């Protein structure tokens, strides 16, 4: 469902990863590993189409990609329900009742976004993924500030709802989600020092 071929991506005009290739079939996840600064975020943003690839391309069904990072886009002046409803409407999807149970938000439905704790906010941000109905998820550190119980909630949703329905997830994370998913270490793909394609290249 997701094919990445010979992808080079750059951060601040300097290539960080080169020659990244992998394929993920429907119903599977892929965990990205690598030390800080190796380019996990850059790769995910490039895959999601937020920044152009230097070389190569990633193909997945059009309008099926969704990106999620630590910035959840939660409005502090809107309630939990309003926040989710907004994203559902933007994506032209219904707002399923079950989502509040799945992410343990049922008690928080009418709380304002600004009054949530960091972990609760994070759960709300992840619940957005369950609302928008996108098949290919690019998740950047999805479990930051979640407690063990919430991590399990999220992993369960990912495994039993998203992947079971034929979705795909690419996850950059440092913790063990407990998913039966292959891991991809990005260290070997680190762009060589003289790697071509940087925006400054013409000046060297």
């Amino acid at each position: 469902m997701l094919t990445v071929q010979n992808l080079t991506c750059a951060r601040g005009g300097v290539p960080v990863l080169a020659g990244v290739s992998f394929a993920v079939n429907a119903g599977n996840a892929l965990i990205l590993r690598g030390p800080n600064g190796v380019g996990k975020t850059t790769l995910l943003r490039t895959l999601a189409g937020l920044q152009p690839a230097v070389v190569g391309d990633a193909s997945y069904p059009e309008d099926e990609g969704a990106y999620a990072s630590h910035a959840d886009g939660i409005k502090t002046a809107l309630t939990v329900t309003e926040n989710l409803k907004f994203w559902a409407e933007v994506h032209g999807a219904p707002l399923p009742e079950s989502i509040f149970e799945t992410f343990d938000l049922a008690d928080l439905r009418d709380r304002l976004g600004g009054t949530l704790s960091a972990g609760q906010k994070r759960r709300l941000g992840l619940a957005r993924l369950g609302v928008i109905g996108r098949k290919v998820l690019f998740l950047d550190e999805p479990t930051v500030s979640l407690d063990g119980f919430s991590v399990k909630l999220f992993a369960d949703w990912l495994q039993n709802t998203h992947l079971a329905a034929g979705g795909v997830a690419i996850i950059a994370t440092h913790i063990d989600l407990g998913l039966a998913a292959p891991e991809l270490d990005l260290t070997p793909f680190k762009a060589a020092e003289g790697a071509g394609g940087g925006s400054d290249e013409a000046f060297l």
Partner: protein
Amino acid sequence: MSMWEYANPKLFMGWTRPVLPWTFALAGICLVVGLVWGFFFTPDDFRQGSTVKIIYLHVPAALMAINAWIMMLVASLIWVVRRHHVSALAARAAAPVGVVMTLIALFTGGIWGQPMWGTYWAWDPRLTSFLILFLFYLGYIALWEAIEDPDTAADLTSVLCMVGSVFAILSRYAVLFWNQGLHQGASLSLDKEENVADVFWYPLLVCIAGFVLLFIALVLMRTRTEIRARRIRALEARAQRA
């Protein structure tokens, strides 16, 4: 080899190095000849007296103030379409030169206007348009300075330049609509008979050529500086990664 290859930064540095001193020299010769000829060897105007001679600074500066913006617009378009770094940097290099030309035009205009109209400044359409042009230049330069990543800055200023050009033209018409003004008609047009007599016309042409050459020389020099700055940046980025 297509003409675009000359825009490669390294090649550009190569061919501008020998060209630059000649351009400066030619500009200097034209300006000295034109200005001396204009100031000392033309008769006083029967109406305007000797004040008319400021035309040799005012008209070329005003022309270049507008042409610099047009050059920036073209360079921005080339950057957006073909992504030639030199093009973006040339646009950046031209802006301060354009500002100075605008200021020269405004100041010499004021000095000329005082004996002619009895005032240094009037909200005349042409004068006002130049003041607005000055503001556009300021915004453009400020945006370049504010953004750290050079490619992002080039992209954003290009869009600003294009949108700004449309609004600059709109402002020109709006200002005409707003006030009919006291500025005389154009000093130059293709049928020169109507405008300026030959005695004034030839030295003026030499001065204009001088200003054009000076503009080219300054832009080339500043572009070279910008390229060097970019090169330092690139080398530093590389050194940090190593």
